[in-house]
């Protein structure tokens, strides 16, 4: 019984980060209308920046959020301004041109990091990496618990931004109807570029929070890109609340699968759920929860 609780708690903690990754993706999906296949790669870049800061200047991973997030935010903005936005008006044979562009960006990011840092596995070992709190029979991994709390903080902040501020309303309006938003005087271009920046910053933050409990190598990017679209699709595309639920479902089912099935199938579970949802529940869990 303890093992069940332990597994569920671990799944819950990791799902906070998954939710953050998913919300970034779902925002980009809603406003730009594309799946961002460079999502995990942006996260990987954020992780490497944190690692460099920790390795060479000794800055604590949690403190370096204040350096990493602005960097990833501006990187994302640059990408959308100079690489993705110009494609919207361009005629092309395949409508997925922007998606293919994100694939290209992802390749460049991975290979750039690989060229600089090589393919070696790296990790950040802080004093609290292995620390844990005992809650009765259950162990709480400290860095994961911190990551969970911070991710909740970020998620709430994002919801306040989306629902209470003019900027947030503009973002939601653009996601709903581009032309109507333009007519209402919203600078759709500015919002589009900004949204990609916000989405990148969120996934970057998730990367920083994950670093103390995870390891790092250039190909970590694609793994999380896959996870990101599983989460997004589970929750229904373009729905932030859906992304949280999707993150929860993926986080818990992955850990349960890793405990009771096999560690190797951990990454496959999300994909199987994903295919099942695609085929049997198009529209994601949004169809059931109606949010």
């Amino acid at each position, binding site marked *: 019984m303890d093992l069940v609780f332990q597994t569920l708690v671990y799944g819950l903690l990791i799902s906070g980060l998954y939710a953050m990754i998913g919300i970034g993706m779902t925002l980009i999906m809603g406003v730009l209308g594309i*799946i961002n296949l460079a999502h995990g790669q942006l996260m990987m870049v954020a992780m490497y920046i944190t690692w460099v800061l920790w390795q060479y200047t000794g800055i604590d991973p949690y403190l370096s959020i204040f350096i990493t997030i602005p960097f990833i935010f501006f990187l994302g903005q640059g990408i959308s301004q100079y*690489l993705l936005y110009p494609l919207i008006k361009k005629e092309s*044979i395949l409508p997925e041109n922007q998606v293919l562009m994100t694939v290209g960006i992802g*390749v460049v990011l991975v290979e750039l990091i690989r060229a600089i840092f090589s393919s070696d596995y790296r990790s950040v070992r802080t004093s609290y990496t292995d620390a844990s709190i005992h809650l009765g029979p259950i162990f709480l991994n400290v860095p994961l618990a911190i990551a969970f709390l911070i991710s909740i903080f970020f998620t709430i902040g994002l919801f306040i931004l989306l629902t209470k501020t003019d900027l947030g309303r503009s973002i939601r309006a653009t996601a709903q109807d581009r032309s109507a938003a333009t007519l209402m005087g919203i600078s759709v271009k500015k919002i589009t570029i900004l949204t990609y920046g916000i989405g990148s910053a969120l996934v970057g933050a998730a990367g920083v929070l994950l670093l103390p409990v995870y390891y790092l190598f250039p190909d970590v990017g*694609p793994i999380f890109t896959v996870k990101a679209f599983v989460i997004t699709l589970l929750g229904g595309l373009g729905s932030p609340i859906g992304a949280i639920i999707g993150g929860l479902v993926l986080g818990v089912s992955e850990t349960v699968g890793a405990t009771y099935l096999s560690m*190797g199938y951990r990454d*496959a579970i999300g994909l199987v759920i*994903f*295919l099942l949802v*695609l085929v049997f529940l198009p529209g994601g869990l949004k169809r059931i929860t109606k949010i």
Partner: protein
Amino acid sequence: MYRNEKIKLFVINRIEWIILASAIATPFIFNFSPYFQGLLIFVLLWVIMGTSWNLLAGFTGQVSFGHAAYFGIGAYAAALPYLHWGISPWWGLLTGGITAVILGYVLGIMVFRLRGPYFALGTLASAEILRIIFGEEKWLSNGHNGILYMTTWVSKYPYYFVALILTIGTILSVKIVMKSKAGYYFLSIREDEDAAEAIGIDTKKYKNIATIISTFWAGMAGAFYMIYMGFVDPETVFALHNISIITILVGIIGGVGTIWGPAVGAVIMVLVQELFRSSFFGLAPDWVSRFHAMAFGLLVIFVILYVAGGVVGDWDLIAKKFRLKKSAEQ
């Protein structure tokens, strides 16, 4: 009238004859180093993969992100009988393509219900699931240790000709099918699936036809890869990045929806990567070689931004630009 068109199907134009002749003659004229021979074979392998992807994505509009699934299953179709019963992997050239077609059909039942980005993600997920299964099920595939096989020939030229035959088969089949009625149906599905359905095209059937041809050659490429390399493991043949994505990029650079696009793209890909890998034949400093894969990625970004149709698709545009520059110089 109709008969004339039928004859036209098999007409290969003059440039294509020249390319074919030079491809056959190359090994006899030049005495390449084994390394360079290997490069030639890899170019051909990517031509097969790119062209087969292009039929499904470029002509039929079903952008597959999981072509590694068919490549990998083809490679394992050659390797598994060898592992379990000692049957020569060469039989893979018979079974590889067929196995891939079966897989393509089964996956098609699932993924052809989906469209656009959903289709892309569905195919991507299928390939990833296969990669994990073949890595985990040790009784089936020897897991991550892979399957090793002593290659038949030391020289690479025989392999070159096998690859060349497969390449000719791929390009010829795409050419023929695109000149037939089915080819026009493919294009109509790409342009507007609902409209195609509305005018009475059985879109499901024609998407399946495109898949059969496309997956067949991808599977053959996989089987050939196994025979040529003598080694197969799930991380290389089902790779998301190194197979699925590179296949797409090869198609984009050359030109989506053109017959010769992926072939040109494959040549460019290998050329760029090798130029960087050798630091421009040692002219540039050493560290340049580390950026070989990134250089190709940057080229892809450049192509999508400025020559959306690819090198072959927008050839007129590129030629015009260069001509303008020349006249300006004079």
